[in-house]
């Protein structure tokens, strides 16, 4: 017994010297380290955003407790979502989502749904751009798609990240709209896809802006159109005399397809409105920092950022959209 008391005392002394814990009586605040779960591997888009958020919070002292980023990307993100689903009522876990919030349960039948979680807020929407190699003769999206159609099925390779996820869904949507047929090649990461396109192992990709921008600036890749209903607002020159704003929307370019990816935050189910509000405010502070704004511009994000009911409605709409697209593509898990 003596030893345990000693252990307790020693641990207490050590911890007290390293940390001091305050628990204010008003409004809810985290009382221990917050886990920021990323349902994807290290180095990807969601991971970068989570780590940036963590860095900004640490740098500007926006939260008294610390935050750790935990990657749980197993089973196309199912690992992370199941963990948060299982942590009902735990206010010290937040999760950032990719489209796999919808696609993974639909494609694999793993039992979770965004309704098991509590929506906190949207951080941004990630764009997708149709890219080709600089040596591709097509100058516009219309030309490219017509060429693919003319070549016939199986002649053109579209590279993307993962299987039955956002990149492949866009590819299918593009096929449906235009009648062209691609062979979709799944890779593990966006940077790898961009490199494969530079090396001409694939013919086109639907990389996010941040995944391909370096190769665009180096003149190795050419953007054809952005899969959104409005052009990206950023007018700083990126590559030569082109800015993000100069890339036409796919609708303008004659291939009417659009898709944006949710970068939003969720918590476990069964948390109190107070607790949700805390994270809504915290993330609002993050969004106001210059570091965040620079990151948004570098990655050419769509800065729509909904909260509350609007956010939940948006997510519900996105879910039915995915349900529809995936059902048509035959990507739904067999029951």
């Amino acid at each position: 017994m003596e030893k345990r008391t000693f252990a307790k005392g020693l641990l207490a002394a050590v911890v007290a010297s390293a940390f001091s814990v305050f628990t204010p009586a008003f409004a809810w605040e985290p009382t221990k380290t917050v886990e920021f779960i990323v349902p994807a591997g290290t180095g990807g888009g969601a991971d970068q955003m989570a780590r940036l958020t963590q860095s900004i919070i640490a740098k500007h002292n926006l939260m008294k407790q610390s935050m750790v980023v935990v990657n749980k990307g197993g089973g196309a993100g199912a690992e992370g979502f199941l963990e948060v689903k299982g942590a009902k009522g735990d206010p010290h876990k937040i999760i950032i989502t990719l489209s796999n919030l919808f696609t993974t349960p639909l494609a694999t039948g793993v039992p979770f749904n965004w309704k098991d979680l509590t929506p906190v807020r949207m951080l941004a929407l990630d764009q997708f751009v149709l890219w080709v190699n600089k040596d591709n003769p097509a100058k516009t999206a219309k030309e490219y798609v017509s060429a693919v159609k003319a070549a016939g099925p199986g002649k053109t390779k579209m590279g993307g990240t993962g299987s039955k996820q956002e990149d492949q869904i866009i590819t299918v949507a593009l096929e449906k709209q235009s009648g062209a047929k691609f062979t979709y090649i799944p890779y593990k990461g966006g940077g790898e896809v961009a490199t494969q396109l530079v090396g001409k192992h694939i013919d086109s990709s639907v990389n996010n802006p941040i995944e391909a921008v370096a190769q665009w600036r180096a003149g190795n890749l050419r953007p054809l159109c952005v899969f959104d209903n409005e052009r990206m607002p950023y007018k700083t020159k990126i590559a030569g005399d082109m800015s993000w704003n100069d890339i036409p929307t796919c609708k303008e370019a004659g291939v009417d397809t659009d898709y944006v990816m949710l970068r939003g935050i969720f918590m476990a189910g069964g948390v109190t409105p107070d607790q949700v509000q805390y994270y809504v405010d915290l993330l609002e502070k993050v969004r106001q920092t210059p570091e965040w704004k620079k990151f948004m511009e570098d990655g050419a994000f769509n800065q729509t950022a909904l909260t509350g009911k609007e956010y939940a409605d948006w997510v519900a709409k996105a879910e039915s959209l995915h349900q529809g697209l995936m059902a048509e593509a035959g990507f739904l898990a067999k029951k």
Partner: protein
Amino acid sequence: MQEIQSLMGGFAVAMSWFNLALMLAGVTLGVLIGVLPGLGGANGVAILLPLTFSMSQQPGGATSAIILLSCIYWGALFGGAITSILFNIPGEPWSVATTFDGYPLAQQGRAGAALTAAFTSSFVGALVAVILITFISPIIARFALQFGPPEFFSVYLLTFSAFVGMSKGTPFKTITAMMTGFALAAVGIDTVTGQLRLTFGFADLLKGFDFLIAVIGLFGIGEILLTIEEGLEFKGAQAKLNMRVVLDTWKELPKYWKTSIRSSAVGCMMGIVPGGATPASFMSYGLAKKMSRDGEKFGTGIVEGVVAPETAAHAAGTSALLPMLTLGVPGSPTAAVLLGGLLIWGLQPGPLLFVEKPDFVWGLIASMYLGNIVGLIVVLTCVPLFAAILRVPFSIIAPVILVICAIGAYTVHNSMFDVWLMLVFGIAGYVFKKLDYPMAPLVLALVLGDRAEDSFRQTMLGPEGSLGLFFSNPLVGTITGASLLLLFWPLISSAIAVARGRNGNRRGG
């Protein structure tokens, strides 16, 4: 010789007291991280990212930040070898091949020699890779672009070919073990179709079998159980504890110059492609065993068997930073986190980084030279200290090791299931060893299985996919050809021997 000039400029940037202090701190931390399984390089770098964020805002700060982080990376590369050699527990995946000869050496009381050889070869591998990066990075970057799915598959095939035929005993046990590794690698989500495989509805199986958990169990815990059969002590406690051992080992090392060169080449290729440090270490070990005059003695505890995997792992680990910088493709999980760091600091990895931020790039390259020298000095001076760990009585060190294993297994996915899994693998490791089921092919299949399958099936996608693609250009044809040759070499050589024998007989008769 513009490179030399740029490099000198880089040294000027990197050589401040502040940066040197950062290197020392980074390497020391990295060694610590590398020693503890589970707290891998990727983890360590990720955890320190927020710290470097404010650092990068000051002028020249981005260079200091990457120096700190990359030195953690070098440190982790060095540190991974320590527990492999002392306890048969690889701290990092690329140290698995180091256990094959490193641990037997330690058991013979030559832990100091094994550690010295490991550290020195690591340094040599890294140095070769850095020199390559300094002078021919544009060519390397173009070489990496040549690699599509068929090329990747041929490289994985080469790794397997270099490695098979290694174990003695019945081929059926080798096949069973290797195929079990492949089966475990297939558990989880299938990259190509997105279907779940072999999960049987268990949520814990979704994430698949992590290599590190299998290895901690099979090698680490299995070994402790085998040791304890014989009583409560570790062999190898009589290890010498002075710096003489470093000098003595250095005298021996130049003998293995061929292995060093070959391993550096293998490592650099695998790092640039990027195939990764783990396959590089396996491939290099396999090739060394096949080509060395002492091939028979590999696995019984010879220094050359430590030199080969360590040189390759470190060469690969270092050259993996090149595709990261010039292509934005991370060559390893740690490089992936570093890449995220660059983006957060406002740097854009890609072909233009060398042009736009020469200070940063050359500062980093200079820090690769300096960081590795600092790292070598740090770890070599600690060799006696590390070897002394073996003198700690078994009933103290064994529970501590088991605790470290448990923490290591837990941290991979933050899951208790993995800790139980590790124990199961531990018992399996004990039984495998007693029944002569070879574990190395199982581990290799586990680490490469899904990657090889992915690249094979990526190649086959579409109506034009056919096996002919693996010979469709000189690059992939050469690699595939070389791997087939290696794979069937035992058959070919015995066929040649038979043919010669017949000729001889005819002449005689």
